[in-house]
């Protein structure tokens, strides 16, 4: 056999999943068994109903369409391109083919004998997971389980990084005291406390004669067990110490140490020479040390935000939050958690910004400053989905005031809004190009005016106006009087009831961009301009989902759920017959959010435009799978809102 040729085939396979999970030796044995086949355009590799061949296929070069044949019509289910794996039913179920594989362009195909791969499948869990997750082409007929996809993605990730608690810092950054305050058994509490005071530490370790640790007393123990109980200072330390103590070696690994402390609710962990209690004390790790070493944990960031009024400091914290985000994304931390944390941080920045603005301007406008108002986030921030500091979309609603006071109030609030926007820009957020911001007089309005706006959008909808207005339906109070925003919500639902034409308009908007199903060769990329040949993940994939999520919660009159993926979860509850589809749509959205954010962090922009070729095969497949529910959901919407009969 020719090594040169086998190596060439092996190297090709090695570029694509699931083959790149195989080790050199196994991949070599797979490559040796490959049969190369050449097909001319118009031929079929297999057709629906054909018995399974003893091979499955990898497209080496060319283009093959997998087509679902129904009666006389063929629907393209998938467009395979280089490296795509297909025809795997033969591998998995030995069932006849359910799709037609039509050769669109002359194609070179690597046929891989099922016999050789069955063994691989049994032995390599990552490879079997790849197939279980439906990553191979043409597996779409069974609805894709995106959660499998997510699971697969995290497990199939290149090089397993530490998924532990080592959130941002290396272990080397972990600080602990090597100089531990110790007293012998038999010491009085008074003396122990005195020693603590002298050393300025919050704890003391009690040792036996061999200097082996037997217990610990902390500031809190002195408060709770001594002073509050009225014990005398002469009582021996043994009487109040916590014992036995949990000990570890200091090089046990940060994640392990941290987990030990969390599990045992420890504030202090004692290091000994060999890690047991029967060994001298070498150090002590406190939860405070842990907090410090986790410089970017959410708690630390939020704490830092709460402790500063310096805009430059806030900006720094927000930058650090980006590192946190990056870590979360890379480690597949659950999206609702990630979105919550980042939204919380964004909210605090906005709240601090409003407070700063008030501090600066209230004294000059004592009368107007009494106005009740609410600062609202709109759009993605309103939906608690803004991971990156993309466009600011916000507004102000204030209580209705007598006409004679209106001018002064508006002047004051616009001043506040201007200040807030400036602070947010300084913190790295981007201005909204459409100027949908609170400092725009149009979007700094009284409750009555806002009600009028919404009534207008709902009662006399117009396609173009609605396209821009949809983000207003995702408002969320961030600072100020919630009752004002509650009143807006209430008003919207009153207006909507019975006005189905408005929902029709929303639905029409939601279907403006069809799901990009024919993905690769027919990938809908931008045709011109700066983003030529890139895929607009926001416009083509995320917006259809946010639009449909919004439409559905509005049609069900659900209040208070703004997250697109949470909206779909809620709708899954409300529409049991579409439960699966809704859950899939929610997961698809999470996947898209994650991808966009990763792309944004990688290229230092909004992440909106993705270069299809730059994505790894697995990413492309995951993305492709995420499109399926969009398409299905759009079809459901089309029927439900009778869009085929509805013309605006």
């Amino acid at each position, binding site marked *: 056999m020719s*090594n040169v040729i086998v190596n060439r085939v092996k190297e090709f396979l090695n570029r694509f999943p699931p083959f790149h999970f195989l080790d050199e030796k196994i991949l070599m044995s797979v490559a040796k068994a490959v049969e190369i086949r050449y097909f001319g355009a118009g031929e079929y590799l297999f057709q629906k109903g054909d018995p399974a061949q003893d091979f499955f296929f990898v497209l080496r070069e060319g283009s093959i369409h997998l087509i679902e044949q129904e009666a006389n019509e063929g629907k393209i289910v998938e467009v395979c391109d280089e490296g795509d794996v297909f025809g795997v039913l033969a591998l998995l179920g030995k069932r006849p083919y359910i799709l037609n594989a039509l050769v669109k362009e002359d194609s070179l195909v690597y*046929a891989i004998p099922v016999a050789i791969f069955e063994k691989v499948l049994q032995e390599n869990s990552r490879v079997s997971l790849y197939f279980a997750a439906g990553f191979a082409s043409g597996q779409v007929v069974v609805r894709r389980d995106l959660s499998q996809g997510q699971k697969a993605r995290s497990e199939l990730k290149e090089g397993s990084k530490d998924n532990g608690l080592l959130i941002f810092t290396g272990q080397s950054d972990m600080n602990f005291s090597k100089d531990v305050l110790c007293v012998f058994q038999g010491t009085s509490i008074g003396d122990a406390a005195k020693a603590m005071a002298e050393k300025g530490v919050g704890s003391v370790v009690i040792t036996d004669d061999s200097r082996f640790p037997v217990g610990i007393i902390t500031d809190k123990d002195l408060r709770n067990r001594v002073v509050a109980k009225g014990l005398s200072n002469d009582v021996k330390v043994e009487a109040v110490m916590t014992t036995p103590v949990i000990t570890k070696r200091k090089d046990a690994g940060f994640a392990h140490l941290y987990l030990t402390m969390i599990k045992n609710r420890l504030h202090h962990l004692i290091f000994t020479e060999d890690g047991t209690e029967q060994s001298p004390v070498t150090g002590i790790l406190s939860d405070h040390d842990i907090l410090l070493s986790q410089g970017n944990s959410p708690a630390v960031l939020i704490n830092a935000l709460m402790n500063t009024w310096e805009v430059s400091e806030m900006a720094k914290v927000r930058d650090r939050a980006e590192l946190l985000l990056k870590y979360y994304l890379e480690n597949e931390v659950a999206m609702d958690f990630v979105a919550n944390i980042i939204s919380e941080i964004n909210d605090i920045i906005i709240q601090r910004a409003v407070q700063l603005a008030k501090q600066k301007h209230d004294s000059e406008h004592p009368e107007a400053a009494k106005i009740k108002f609410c600062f609202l986030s709109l759009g993605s921030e309103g939906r608690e989905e803004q991971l990156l500091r993309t466009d600011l979309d916000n507004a102000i609603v204030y209580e209705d005031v007598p006409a004679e006071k209106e001018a002064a109030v508006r002047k004051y609030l616009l001043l506040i809004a201007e200040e807030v926007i400036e602070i947010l820009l300084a913190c790295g957020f981007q201005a909204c190009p459409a100027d949908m911001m609170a400092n725009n007089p149009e979007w700094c309005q009284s409750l009555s005016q806002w009600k009028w706006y919404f009534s207008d959008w709902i009662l006399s909808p117009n396609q173009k106006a609605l396209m821009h207005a949809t983000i207003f339906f995702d408002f969320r109070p961030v600072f100020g009087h919630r009752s004002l925003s509650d009143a807006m919500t209430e008003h919207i639902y009153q207006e909507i009831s019975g006005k189905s034409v408005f929902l029709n308009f929303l639905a029409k908007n939601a279907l403006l961009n069809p799901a990009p199903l024919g993905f690769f060769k027919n990938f809908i990329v931008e045709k011109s301009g700066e983003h030529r040949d890139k895929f607009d993940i926001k416009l083509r994939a995320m917006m259809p989902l946010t639009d449909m999520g919004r439409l559905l919660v509005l049609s069900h009159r659900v209040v208070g759920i703004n997250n697109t993926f949470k909206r779909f979860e809620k709708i899954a509850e409300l529409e049991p017959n579409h439960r699966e589809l809704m859950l899939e749509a929610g997961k698809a959205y999470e996947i898209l959010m994650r991808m966009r954010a990763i792309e944004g962090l990688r290229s230092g922009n909004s992440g909106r435009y993705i270069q299809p070729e730059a994505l790894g095969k697995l990413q492309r497949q995951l993305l492709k799978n995420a499109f399926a529910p969009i398409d299905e959901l759009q079809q459901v919407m089309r029927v439900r809102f009778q869009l085929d009969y509805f013309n605006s």
Partner: protein
Amino acid sequence: MMGWLDFLFRKKIAKTAFVKAYEALFAKNIPDQRPISQLSFTVLDTETTGLDVKKDYIVSFGAVKVKGYRLQLNQSKEVYLNTPIQKADALKVHEILYPIEISPLRDFAEDFLKYVSNDIIVGHHIGFDLGMLEKLLKQYGLRSLLNPVIDTQALAMRLEKGPHYDPRMGKRGEFALDALCERYGIALDDRHTAAGDAFLTAQLLMKLLKLAEQKGIRTYGALV
């Protein structure tokens, strides 16, 4: 050494058993109406110490089999030969860097004739390779190779320019393997190994055969 042998046995070289077995395969011709998809091809290439059939020798040999637009990797072949003169220059050009097992000439001759059987032999600029192979096989009693032959260069010219094309009219290198691979979208990874070039040529052959079928050349008779 071979020149010396030639001189001694020029008149009469006894046919070895494997040569006889090979020649026996050609008692019957391939029927003209046999469709292309039923034909067996051996696509081969050799790397040599130089370009002079008289003076130079085969260093390595690579081949694959194609039948019905299928190519099985476990039937591919790659052989490094025990040549009388190992020209450092040639080795440099072809960069044979694999740890290689050198086959004695006689073993190669026997294996080769068994492998190629009565297939249609295919190669790019195949005349040169055939000349080198025949020179090697002569010492075992083979007068000439009996297989039908397809030169992918000639086939490409015929398909692209028509049967009466005069290659002297074209651009230089227009039908070289590199140029053709590029034109037909075949990835050129590591050229200059016999097996690598045979593999490329096989892919080119499959593309050319499809093209031939589209142009109405569908049988052995029409093809050769």
